[in-house]
């Protein structure tokens, strides 16, 4: 019962935060948490359900964000164009890099996804029209059908709607025939092939869906910061997304939301007290892996 209600409880808390007397900083952090939660859930489909250890999930986020920047530079600021372009580009990227990465397993898969994300990082840094390494400031936030739905406080509620929408979508996908096949591929790939299911096609589809949703997070993130830079694709970002998913428990969608909350709160919260928070975060991460053998959330599967 609690498991069924928990996600809705989480959404209710997010919905309430702007109306509580908690100050603008808390709302700002909560907004970032929701955006990263969307990205973390999309990685959970790949890593948690599909068992594919992608260390390059920051790449589709960055591609989504750069779609906003490029269209902004071209004077296009309507979500009707921006979102399909962002998702389309990220999905195409996932099809190409995924086809290569899926030729390898385990360690090699981790290294290859990491390398492709690094490729996006360097490619973004060499785009001199969009600020190169320095990044690009948006002239204006993206609008929806000409309405300022992502401007000011509206972005918060747009993110909340996106969060709930993505959660519902992914929940449906996980429960579908595709979701069952994906989970089965994680458990026993050869067995699944013996059943006449194309395991690689299932995995590639998961990578593509995950990339599309990550691009949505990238569009929101670019609008939140009103700024885009190669750092969106930095490998450390891919790493923290993995931490979020594992922290929340592999395969648990609302767990990924909680994982995102913990990591973002740690960054923003500790960041207020010391600029050296990565030291503490890194040490805690090592200790967690060493001493919580069943995973950070205790619900990890093998």
């Amino acid at each position: 019962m609690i498991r069924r209600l928990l996600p809705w409880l989480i959404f209710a808390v997010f919905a309430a935060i702007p109306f509580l007397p908690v100050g603008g900083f808390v709302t700002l952090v909560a907004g970032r948490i929701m955006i990263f939660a969307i990205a973390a859930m999309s990685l959970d489909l790949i890593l948690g359900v599909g068992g594919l250890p992608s260390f390059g999930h920051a790449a589709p986020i960055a591609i989504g964000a750069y779609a906003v920047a490029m269209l902004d530079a071209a004077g296009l600021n309507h979500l009707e164009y921006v979102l399909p372009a962002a998702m389309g580009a990220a999905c195409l990227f996932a099809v190409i890099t995924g086809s290569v990465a899926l030729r390898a397993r385990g360690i090699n898969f981790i290294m290859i996804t990491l390398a492709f994300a690094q490729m996006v990082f360097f490619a973004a840094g060499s785009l001199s029209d969009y600020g190169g390494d320095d990044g690009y400031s948006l002239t204006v936030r993206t609008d929806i059908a000409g309405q300022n739905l992502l401007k000011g406080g509206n972005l918060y509620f747009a993110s909340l709607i996106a969060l709930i929408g993505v959660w519902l979508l992914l929940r449906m996908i996980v429960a579908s025939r595709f979701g069952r096949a994906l989970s089965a591929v994680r458990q026993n790939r050869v067995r699944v092939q013996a059943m006449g299911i194309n395991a690689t096609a299932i995995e590639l589809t998961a990578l593509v869906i995950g990339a599309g949703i990550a691009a949505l997070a990238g569009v929101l993130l670019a609008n939140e910061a009103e700024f885009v830079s190669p750092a969106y694709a930095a490998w450390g970002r891919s790493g923290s997304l993995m931490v979020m998913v594992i922290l929340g428990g592999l395969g648990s969608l609302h767990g990924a939301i909680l994982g995102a909350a913990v990591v973002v709160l740690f960054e923003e919260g500790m960041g207020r007290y010391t600029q050296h928070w990565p030291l503490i975060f890194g040490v805690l991460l090592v200790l967690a892996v060493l001493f919580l053998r069943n995973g950070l959330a205790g619900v990890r599967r093998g």
Partner: protein
Amino acid sequence: MTLLLVQALNGIQLGMLLFLIAAGLTLVFGVMNFVNLAHGVQYMIGAYLGVSLAALTGSFWGGLVLASVAAGLFGLVLEWLIFRHLYGRSDLDQVLATFGVILALNEATRIIWGSNPLELAMPDALSGSFLLVPGLRYPVYRIAVMAAGLLVAAGLAVVVNRTRVGMLIRAGATNGAMVSALGVDIGRLFRLVFGVGAMLAGFAGVLAAPLVSVEPGMGDNLLILAFVVIVIGGVGSIRGAFVAAVIVGLVDTLGRSLITDGAHAAFSAGTSARIGPAVASMLIYLVMAVVLAIRPAGLFGKPV
């Protein structure tokens, strides 16, 4: 043409540095089946220790020797403290824990040495340049880096192919269970491989220090390049790491100049300045993709 020659030499020199990092990494992967993201940290630690110890001893050479040894010892401490508890754990556990190590050590470096880039002066004996071909001078130091890389490669080749330890390493890379079945203390073999790998990465860090800016996180990008090297060369293969490191070094360095020139010829100056660098930065990843498409286990990897 002369510029091309310089770029090719720079490419080989980058390849040698990559090889020094990738050699340890690929053996650790191969023999221990251990994903050590923190291997790039060894390179950074080597560079920083090199700067400090060179200042302390007043000599680049003192810094080079002491820092390499210290980096190796530091690697062994990390192995004893953290990594040995991760053998046999899932890839994901290893990735997360070593990711944590990178975050912590990059930040610790920032606390100890500060965020500003440091510099290490090259030794006087190697600081000049010589006439490569008429009209073109090339720095002696870069040649020395290449020579050092080649020497290490030759040494490793002898050790791995001709000695008992090397045989165990090769056997361990193929079948770890068999080696421990032979009654070999696999833990000691691991520590040896790990320590030497850490030392080589540290050595590479000191060698690179006069050529690059020494700063926190300097090992991260090189680590990912080393991953590309290992993927292309094949996990566990020293020869693969060497060949792939040279390929990656050459493609990256030559690609940047050739593609910019090529784009210049094909497009207007403005367009080529825009797309040239972006394409050039993707080249090595394209090479990786092509190699994987043809040989999923890498050039010298064992096909599955």
